[in-house]
């Protein structure tokens, strides 16, 4: 166990015993991860912040039930907190879907391939293509490509077997390649 992991174990144990200051340190450590996952799922900075807050409140309540991983280099907290924010964000997106569906995330038509040279437009096309992926494949892709979670951590975060993680990643990548073939030949 590394020093970093040992320190995290202390923070988690203290938080589990009701130490709010220790939990505050965990919030600071995982804030960027949590916001980033939420944002990449919903594409809305304000909603991402709200989901991060919701996730941390849920994490505080559920912490007494969190079991620290005894083996390996990780405490399992990263996967656990990722799971909370993925579920919270997907639930909220489903709840809001009638008002702000995924179609709203897709830029208006008429963008020609030549314009994709512009970095902003390029990013927008990628963002739209990701937004059109099925939720669970999108979550797997985000956790892997942006947050660098291992297959094992993604399996924990999404509560699926590792084989399913790999198939969802393959599916997401294949779909993205097809959708972005004009822009990234």
């Amino acid at each position: 166990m590394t020093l970093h992991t040992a320190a995290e174990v202390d923070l988690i144990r203290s938080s589990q015993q009701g130490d709010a200051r220790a939990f505050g340190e965990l919030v600071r450590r995982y804030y960027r991860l949590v916001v980033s996952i939420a944002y990449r799922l919903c594409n809305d900075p304000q909603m991402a912040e709200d989901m991060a807050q919701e996730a941390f409140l849920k994490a505080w309540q559920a912490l007494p039930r969190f079991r620290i991983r005894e083996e390996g280099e990780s405490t399992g907290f990263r996967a656990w907190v990722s799971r909370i924010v993925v579920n919270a964000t997907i639930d909220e997106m489903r709840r809001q879907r009638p008002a702000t569906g995924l179609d709203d995330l897709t830029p208006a038509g008429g963008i020609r391939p030549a314009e994709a040279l512009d970095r902003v437009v390029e990013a927008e096309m990628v963002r739209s293509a990701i937004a059109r992926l099925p939720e669970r494949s999108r979550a797997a892709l985000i956790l892997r490509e942006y947050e660098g979670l291992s297959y094992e951590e993604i399996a924990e975060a999404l509560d699926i077997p590792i084989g399913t993680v790999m198939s969802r990643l393959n599916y997401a990548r294949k779909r993205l390649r097809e959708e972005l073939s004009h822009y990234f030949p």
Partner: protein
Amino acid sequence: MADDHQPWSRWLIAYHDGELSPAERERFLEHLATCPRCQHALADLESLRRALHTVTVPWSEISSADEMWTRVAMHLERRRANRLASAPWLHWLPSMGLLLLNVVTHAAGLLIVIVMVLSMTGLVNVQRALGWADRVQGVPADQVLSWVALRSLGGPLGWGANMISLPPGWDAAVEFVLSTLAFILVAFVVGLAYMLSLWLLWRRGELT
């Protein structure tokens, strides 16, 4: 016809995702050096990864971690305050619990004194009233009860043994241990239940 390249395709993706062991990685790199198909597929995956990383999080539009913690802490405090408002008994639970512990312990002691007095004065045949056995180790049950009661109160303090002489045939050591344990257990069980309830409330953040 079976696709002999299939296993390498799986390794390619695992390699791209950093999931191969050092030995597997070395083996795959040897294959990659001689396989145009894998080289092309890997370039494809890397191209997609570069494309994905054109999308960034607009951190300038998002609060800092400290601001987030302030908000989370405020929510936690508000939730706690709301819970206390909806359950005011949580405020005085600790002091009421201590009071209850005292009352129960003293009531148990008082009961023992009453039974002892009644039994010793012969006003009530406690043994018959409670339906106990006639004799314990050759001693009449009401005398046993007196002894147990006396020692329950006095045993822990060490003065009960001097108040009445030991009946013949009575095992003093067993009597002393049993009567002392009886008294301690009453206080212990009540105290334990109380402490457990306080601990559970504290774990849930109801108490600070």
